[in-house]
């Protein structure tokens, strides 16, 4: 094992994994994190903590993830390249590991023009692929990006994102291969609504044998309304939403129930695709629905986490987080 990550343990044991996304609050309230974490307890193998998603300022990913560690959950700290340079990133990775965080998801990050500080200066000192390699070098070669020696390495399970719905389509799998070569252990994809396109992408993934070198978790968003789907289709770059899904949501008497049904059906279809190692649920601030979807998709109970806990044994979990 490369890390003490529960997610790595579950995947390595050959289980079909389930992760969920938790969006930190636009406030200093730890209570919000604790409440949302309750929905995920016993329901997923690891919890993604977004890093100022859509460039809106929220509680930091590290702090939120540390709170989850204190609650016995396995957080996946998301880290974007938008806001920090290589110095801050390495420093935060060391600090995150010291706080008991065992997973990192390396992302490019949404452009700041989407968020609530569009006049800010972006960083992008590294891109996501360079970030993946940097974490791998820190973990496996015990070296900083500078080449300097690193005495106690951060044993992180390294994740990356890939979007099969972005363009150029033929290149997406090449970029995935670059991420795997750079050191990605697992991949979480953009939300899948367009199963045929996702299947074609997975075919290319298998042609390159990448599914044997990296765990691929397919993204699923449970939606509440037809409007939400239309918004994603028209306003969110890099999403593919078939019109028939929108029509199905429009025709539904109970759109929330229909949204759950679609999510459950999507999960069942994705599970049939060879090379898909798990599901990544992105409830978009509707965390309460995660246990419902997990239950109805037949993904519960989850494999029990190890009795010894997830934090580094020598350091122990942070007191009270």
């Amino acid at each position, binding site marked *: 094992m490369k890390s003490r990550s529960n997610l790595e343990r579950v995947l390595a044991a050959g289980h079909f994994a389930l992760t969920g996304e938790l969006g930190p609050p636009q406030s200093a309230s730890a209570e919000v994190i604790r409440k949302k974490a309750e929905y995920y307890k016993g329901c997923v193998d690891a919890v993604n903590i977004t890093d100022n998603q859509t460039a809106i300022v929220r509680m930091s990913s590290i702090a939120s993830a540390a709170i989850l560690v204190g609650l016995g959950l396995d957080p996946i700290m998301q880290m974007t390249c938008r806001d920090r340079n290589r110095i801050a990133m390495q420093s935060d990775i060391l600090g995150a590991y010291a706080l008991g965080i065992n997973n990192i998801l390396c992302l490019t990050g949404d452009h700041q023009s989407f968020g609530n500080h569009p006049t800010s200066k972006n960083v*992008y000192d590294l891109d996501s692929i360079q970030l993946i390699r940097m974490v791998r070098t820190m973990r496996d070669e015990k070296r900083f990006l500078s080449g300097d020696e690193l005495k106690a390495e951060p044993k992180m399970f390294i994740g990356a994102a890939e979007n099969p719905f*972005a*363009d*150029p389509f033929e290149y997406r799998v*090449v970029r995935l291969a*670059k991420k795997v070569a750079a050191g990605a252990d697992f991949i979480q994809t953009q939300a899948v609504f367009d199963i045929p396109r996702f299947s074609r992408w997975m075919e290319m993934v298998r042609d390159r044998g990448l599914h044997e070198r990296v765990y691929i978790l397919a993204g699923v968003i449970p939606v509440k309304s037809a409007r939400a789907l239309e918004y994603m289709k028209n306003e969110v770059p890099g999403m593919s939403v078939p019109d028939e899904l929108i029509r199905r949501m429009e025709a539904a008497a109970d759109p929330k129930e229909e949204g759950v049904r679609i999510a459950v059906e999507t999960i069942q279809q994705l599970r049939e695709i060879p090379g898909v190692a798990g599901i990544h649920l992105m409830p978009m601030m509707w965390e309460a629905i995660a246990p419902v979807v997990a239950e109805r998709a037949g993904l519960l109970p989850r494999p029990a986490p190890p009795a010894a806990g997830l934090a580094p044994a020598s350091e122990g979990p942070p007191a009270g987080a």
Partner: protein
Amino acid sequence: MIVAERKSLDEILAMLQGCSRVLVVGCGTCVTVCMAGGEKEVGVLASLLRLAAQREGRTVEIGEATIERQCEWEFVDKLAPAIRGYDAVLSMGCGAGVQTIAQRFGGVRVLPALNTKFIGIPEKQGLWVEMCLGCGDCVLDRTGGICPIARCSKGLLNGPCGGSQGGKCEVSKDTDCAWQLIYDRLASLGRLDLLETEFAPKDWSKNRDGGPRKVLREEVML
């Protein structure tokens, strides 16, 4: 060329508050070509300033001069006789021009009339686009002659990110995804293999992050 754009008249007037003798100085090189600060634009701005003063019942003297290049001593020196008696120079050159005049003439306020935008090209009449960031370490040999540093909104070296769709950038449907352009160009050249290799992190010390940059060439020094 350096592409610039004139500041609003209100901003220029606010800058000039308290100045009664102003010399508007144009530049005959880049900003003439991009129609922001050449002789013609000097004439227009000077007229606007005179009109504004008249409307407010103030007496100001607005002079006009245009030199070949505001960023070279030999041309800036020629301003010496013209500049006498003025309490401000309103430069219509790029940022380099404004600073060269300020450095040469210590006793006079030198103010910028333009916002210097970028190194770019006129894509068509009336539209200029950025092409180069002057990063100090050119990568165009590996990217099909299309610069991801200047033209990708995130400056990614291993793009495109997940926000590229239909050839457009996630930031705006009016902006081409630089990495889609790179992909198409390399595909047409039969060099998609260049996109299989990983770009290492960029050495930003060659950019302005290392402080103001200098090029020193002893073989051409006098």
